[in-house]
């Protein structure tokens, strides 16, 4: 019984499946999204925490804000330097970062992340 053709077919399927990422992308990747800052954000220079921290942990801060605001009623967030902010996604974050499509969505889409922030929160009209 010669079953080599079947085995080779199986191996072709194996290679096809396990090299999926290689052929799916046609060997080219678009450049990773660059975070676009609005003029206002640029002018402000600082966020509620330093940039690298915000890149990694912004969802944690927002989660923490939600809890402190909703459950404990504390609406003020104090950063490391003692500066106070109103803990609000719509009113504080999106005041500077009013360009949701550029600032939020690009990276979220890029990494297939689907945050449920805007299930509840409205976001401001984009400024041109």
């Amino acid at each position, binding site marked *: *019984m010669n*079953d*080599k053709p079947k*085995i*080779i077919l*199986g*191996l072709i399927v*194996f*290679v096809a499946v*396990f*090299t*999926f*990422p*290689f052929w*799916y*992308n046609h*060997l*080219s*990747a*678009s450049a*990773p*999204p660059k975070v676009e800052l609005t003029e206002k954000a640029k002018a402000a220079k600082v966020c509620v925490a330093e940039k*690298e921290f915000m*890149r*990694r*942990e912004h*969802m*944690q801060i927002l*989660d923490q804000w939600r809890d402190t605001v909703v459950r404990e009623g504390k609406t003020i967030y104090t950063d490391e330097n003692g500066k106070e902010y109103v803990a609000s996604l719509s009113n504080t974050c999106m005041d500077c970062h009013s360009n949701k499509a550029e600032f939020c969505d690009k*990276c979220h*889409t*890029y*990494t*297939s*992340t*689907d945050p449920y922030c805007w299930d509840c929160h409205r976001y401001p009209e984009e400024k041109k």
Partner: protein
Amino acid sequence: MNVNYLSSLAAVIILGLIAYAGAQSGGFYQVLFGIFIPYLAVLVFILGFINRVMDWAKSPVPFRIPSTCGQQQSMEWIKQSKIDNPSTFIGVVIRMFLEIVLFRSLFRNSRVEIRGDRLSYKWVIWLWLFAIMFHYSFLAVVIRHLRFFTEPVPFFIPLIEKVDGILQVGLPIYYISGLTLLAGATLLLLRRVLIPKINYISQAADYFPLFLIIGIAFTGIMMRYFTKVDVVRIKEMTMGLVTLHPGIPEGPIGGLFYVHLFFVSILVAYIPFSKLMHMGGVFLSPTRNLANNSRAKRHINPWNYPVKVHTYEEYEDDFREKMIEAGLPVEKE
């Protein structure tokens, strides 16, 4: 204490530390752990896997030896067990499908116990359950990870993420598969450590991949939920890898990521040389992948060779007189 699992655990910890230290040293080491080793690992995996399977394929299946686990095909009024004792290709395909997808044979597992003057056999589902949990979690985790290797991300990945995160607990939303992978691997490990019989048959080669996978799941869970890493930069890097434009992105990623990646690299490169080849081997097991029809259809053995037999003539020469005396017919009087 058992040298088999301690040595495996130590090996995994040392490998993790090496990768972490490498990532911290930056420059060349990041290229080594982030680009060179992953490429090498994938290459070893694919080529090693093919090589191993082709090596199996090189040896023929001289005899048709299915383990028949049900009624054979017989007269039409006797109901055949078409899956457990298939006589057709379709039957074999279904048998193999159930074997590979549902671990059907493992599902039969039982445990023997002595009760008074009786042996009793109890159906036990734990091994099957842990195995199913472990393998399907692993599959879900691997598919989810394609989000780092595809751009745009294909539709089925968010779909699986949705299902996997169906509990909608925590932030980022907890994925069930991550936890069940860790739990499954841990349970399989505990079996080996705690059940004396299983402990007795376990080797370093059984502990090592479990520790490695636990390490992978652990670092993965850490990165997602606790010590955060920069996901956008990671994807930039992984996309670079799969589009053959490798590079180390600017800015920090997080040392844990390198540990995770190194563990995965070790695991995939280890597959072709280890028992993890059961992944390919299960397709080639002659007791499962053949129809039980060797009485109806001749199976060919490519190395069948003539052997020395004792012919009837030799037999008759030996016994002719006695045969004639007993009135038995003979060829030569």
